[in-house]
């Protein structure tokens, strides 16, 4: 299987087939990236396509220093930030929807989204980049321009906070305050 980076270099050299292979590999992933962050499937698709447009326009400047995967999500994060600055998109997190749609998501997904909303934005982004985009700590560190140790500690905190919230389903108390990891992050062996 030819690597993403080799495909990118082939595209740089003029291969359309290489671009199409990259598109096939990453379109769904990028659509999902935007889909989870914007409550607007059409806009998610637009932005996924815009990411590839940006790749085409910047192809001559691509250098194989970073993984293509990281490179693409870097572009996607910039497009997402620009979209949020416009403030007109119905966003899953932190933005108001002009016309809220009827959400037909399964209950489990609604719970996940509610839990995500309760996280601080930087922790949420780290968690999503890790869980859904499967980026490494160093990739996340590079993309968000924060130290690797910060990535790790925030990721840990957010996972435990999420666990606490998701567990509250059993008690039927969706308003239960998220622990932010407080009861869990104490060191083991301590009273």
């Amino acid at each position: 299987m030819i690597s993403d980076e080799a495909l990118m270099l082939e595209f740089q050299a003029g291969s359309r087939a290489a671009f199409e292979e990259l598109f096939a590999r990453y379109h769904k992933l990028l659509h999902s990236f935007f889909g989870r962050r914007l409550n607007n499937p059409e806009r998610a698709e637009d932005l996924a396509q815009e990411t590839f447009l940006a790749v085409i326009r910047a192809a001559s400047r691509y250098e194989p220093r970073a993984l293509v995967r990281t490179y693409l999500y870097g572009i996607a994060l910039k497009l997402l930030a620009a979209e949020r600055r416009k403030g007109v998109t119905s966003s899953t997190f932190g933005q108001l929807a002009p016309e809220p749609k009827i959400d037909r998501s399964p209950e489990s997904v609604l719970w996940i989204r509610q839990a995500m909303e309760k996280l601080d934005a930087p922790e949420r982004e780290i968690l999503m980049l890790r869980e859904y985009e499967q980026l490494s700590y160093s990739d996340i560190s590079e993309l968000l321009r924060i130290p690797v140790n910060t990535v790790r500690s925030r990721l840990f905190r957010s996972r435990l906070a999420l666990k606490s919230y998701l567990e509250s389903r059993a008690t039927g108390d969706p308003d239960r305050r998220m622990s932010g990891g407080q009861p869990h992050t104490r060191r083991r062996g301590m009273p």
Partner: protein
Amino acid sequence: MSTDRHPIEQEEVMAYLDGELPPGRASEALSHLELCPECQTLVADLRGVSQELMAWEVESPEVRILSEIDVALVQRLKERGAPKVSPSRLKSRVMTSRWLWAGALAVLCVAVGLTLTLTRRNRNDERSTAYPSMASIEQYLISDRNAEIALARSAAPESISSDAKILVLGWRGYETAREGRNGFVCVVERSWMSPYSSAEFWNPKVRVPACFNPAAARSILPVTFKRTEMVLAGLSKAQMIDRMKAAIDSKELPPPEPGAMCYMMSRASHLNDSLGHYVPHLMFYFPLTDKAAWGADLPDSPVTLNPQFRDGPEPITEFVIPVAKWSDGTAAPAM
């Protein structure tokens, strides 16, 4: 925290599961995890969160390149001049990829854009709703060691497996349960030996007994060990693929030796939820080989190309030939 009780921090346990600890520290983490119920609970909690999050799937639209992109692409390629990819290489790749077949059609559709439709099979592969992520390690282990030994042996007739070396899966990977005398090695493989894109890559019910002949034990089994090691280290599929590529490039993993094959004749196997125990069969391994050389997948040919490594970096071609009997000598159903 008492560092005597917990020589690794909780964050490090998480980092271990994420494949983010350096090898030495990962080894210490694994040693501690085997013995520490409290840390095992933390592992289960963290895996549980990841597993829950996988329920949030985003419905994907039809895969298509919009006309705007297509125009930009044409413009870019025009500016760039003729492709530098050699026509023969390009042709070869187009021939071997259904995606690139679609790509060739795209050239004809410059002005109006193009719709690329995934095949039904690819769509099914991507719908990994039943087993979206790794289950807890315990679910992949077989608690009864003797049962796993017997299951591994059931891959081949007794005349072969009784003298074979038997490996069983533990927390650290495969370990020797019985020494052998004939060079064969029998193991029970798990779901992560499926194609990376398989919807059942994380199916904890999968049990695939296989007895590898000496050539395969030397050159194919290391792939099983490598994938298993990465899974137990908590690596994601993307990380596994990257590291597998590196292992192949560095020659850590050898190419298939001539004559490498294995027996898979157990009636107790569970290949996946759709195939169940399938039929008894033999598998033959080669460096990347055109299936036409074996007449595989042709009408009435008993030889099929196994897709096990179709989407992975492992440069292995694998042919399957069904046989008439299970390893215990009883007749198998016809294909």
